[in-house]
């Protein structure tokens, strides 16, 4: 039996490297109707902010060539309701659970992280300094190295479990941010969040998403994500969780070869709600077919000759 477990740092062990990406998997409970999410390596919940957020004006999504645009605006039920309504469900999940943490100001991140630190069934947080769709906070925290370092450092002070930080591709050099976030105490990095994108309806002349500029995701961004993972793997020592357009087990192998330790499946969950599970199954098959006895052997395994 091929070994599929991977470790993210010294405190997270995934039974396989497949996680689901924040914003594409709700709080996990929506998918338990379809399959046992215990078969996944882990899940990352939708972003949680201190207060409820109703989200951005409409329309919020549009399909494009090779992907989609979204501008949801971190719509979520807020920290208190998350704890009272969703934690009792999450407690039963037999997989690693990360909560994506966001906010308008630094103190929002600290507040959410501090509260989540006390909850046993939450294995780690993913600090979201890369949401492109909110006026305050979001990507603004992830594009300035000083600010990115400060958020990471301050959240680190109140959060003792695994802290993953999610990076934006909408910067000149992603390795600059990766390095300062590593130095400020992150345990791992997840990358990439969506790219800035837009689309216009040529009949009505209106933007297809109301916020005009939105986040572009899906298969079209995979090459962009891969090079970001590759470059960061050369720049930092902490583990990388790669994402961007992953739709197949082969894509997973590609991200691992580029230097990722694990991956997140995002937009593909919308194409098929069983996408992440199917990828786990297919990965095991491929490992058998290609005589890969340990998935860890693939990490950073790209060969030049």
């Amino acid at each position, binding site marked *: 039996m091929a070994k599929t477990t991977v470790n993210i740092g010294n405190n997270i062990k995934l039974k396989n490297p497949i996680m689901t990406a924040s*914003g*594409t*998997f*709700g709080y996990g409970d*929506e*998918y338990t*109707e*379809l399959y046992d999410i215990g078969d996944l390596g882990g899940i990352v919940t*939708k972003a949680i902010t201190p207060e409820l957020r*109703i*989200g951005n004006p*409409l*329309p*919020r*999504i*549009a*399909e494009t*060539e*090779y*992907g*989609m645009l*979204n501008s*949801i605006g971190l*719509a979520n039920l807020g920290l208190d309701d998350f704890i009272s309504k969703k934690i009792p469900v999450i407690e039963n999940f037999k997989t690693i659970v990360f909560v994506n943490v966001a906010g308008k100001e630094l103190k929002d991140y600290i507040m959410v992280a501090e509260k989540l630190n006390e909850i046993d069934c939450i294995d780690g947080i993913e600090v979201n300094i890369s949401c492109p769709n909110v006026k305050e906070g979001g990507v603004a925290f992830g594009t300035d190295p000083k600010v990115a370092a400060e958020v990471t450092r301050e959240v680190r002070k109140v959060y003792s479990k695994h802290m993953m930080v999610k990076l934006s591709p909408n910067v000149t050099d992603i390795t600059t941010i990766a390095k300062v976030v590593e130095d400020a105490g992150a345990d791992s990095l997840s990358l990439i969040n969506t790219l800035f994108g837009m689309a216009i309806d040529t009949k009505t002349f209106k933007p297809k998403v109301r916020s005009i500029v939105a986040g572009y995701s*899906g*298969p079209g961004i995979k090459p962009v994500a891969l090079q970001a993972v590759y470059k960061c793997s050369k720049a930092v020592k902490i583990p990388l969780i790669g994402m961007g357009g992953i*739709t*197949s087990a082969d894509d997973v192998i590609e991200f691992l070869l580029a230097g990722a330790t694990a991956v997140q499946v995002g*937009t*593909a*969950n*919308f*194409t*098929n*709600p*069983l996408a992440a599970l199917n990828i786990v199954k297919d990965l095991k098959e491929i490992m058998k077919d290609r005589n890969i006895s340990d998935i860890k052997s693939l990490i950073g395994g790209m060969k030049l000759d």
Partner: protein
Amino acid sequence: MTESKYHEVQAEVVSVKELKHNVIEAVLRSKEIAKNTKPGQFITIQVTNKDESVPVLRRPFAVSYTKGDDFQIIFDVVGRGTDILKDMLKAGKKINVLGPLGNGFNTKVNGKEKLLLAGGIGIAPIKKLMQHFTEKGDQVTLIWGNRDKSGFFDIDFFMDQNIKLFVATDDGSLGFEGNVLDILKAEIKNNNLKKINDYNIYVVGPGPMMKAVADYCTEMDHYCQVSLETPMACGIGVCQGCAVKKKKEDGYFLTCVDGPVFNSCSVEIP
């Protein structure tokens, strides 16, 4: 929340008919979906052909009829997704279906006759609702409006049903000249229909049509149930992409799990 558990199935294509140019009726086989779908609920289909991962989004369709293990969808070929779907639908082939999704129509409002109003392809979910009521033996009146007579299809089927049927066209090329609301008001005036408040009203059609009927209902101190269509990604309440505005308060409903059917008093019809 969704009324019933949904399923991901490989549904076999039983038959495909082009009812008129670019209007497709397809019958698919899935016990899970056929037996569990309530009027107004929908399914989504993965239109990605072969193993290609684009287009990335599934396409939602109302279920328009069920019989035994089979269910039917009717759709206009309007763009990339429906174009691909048209080619995918070959008898014997299996396609990836998720459903039943969303809340259907509230059919348990007692004591009144049922008034069903359809605009254009809005007839698709209305057909399943009509099936439900006629099988129960309820009194059903159906008004179907189109821009002109070329918009109608399968009209014999509807004429064969034990219902009161009215048709209207904007240009008068078939039936009453005017829109669905015009004919509704005219037939009430002519005593061919009862007072609006004597009906449970269900409306599916283009936004402006549903809005006009909803406004008229409000004016008459009544309401109707409307079925909305919005851009949609996941269909199960995860992505928050299919939001529609609440009417009397701040915030949004999600078309996929809070709808697609809403009380006209509670939602801004997009």
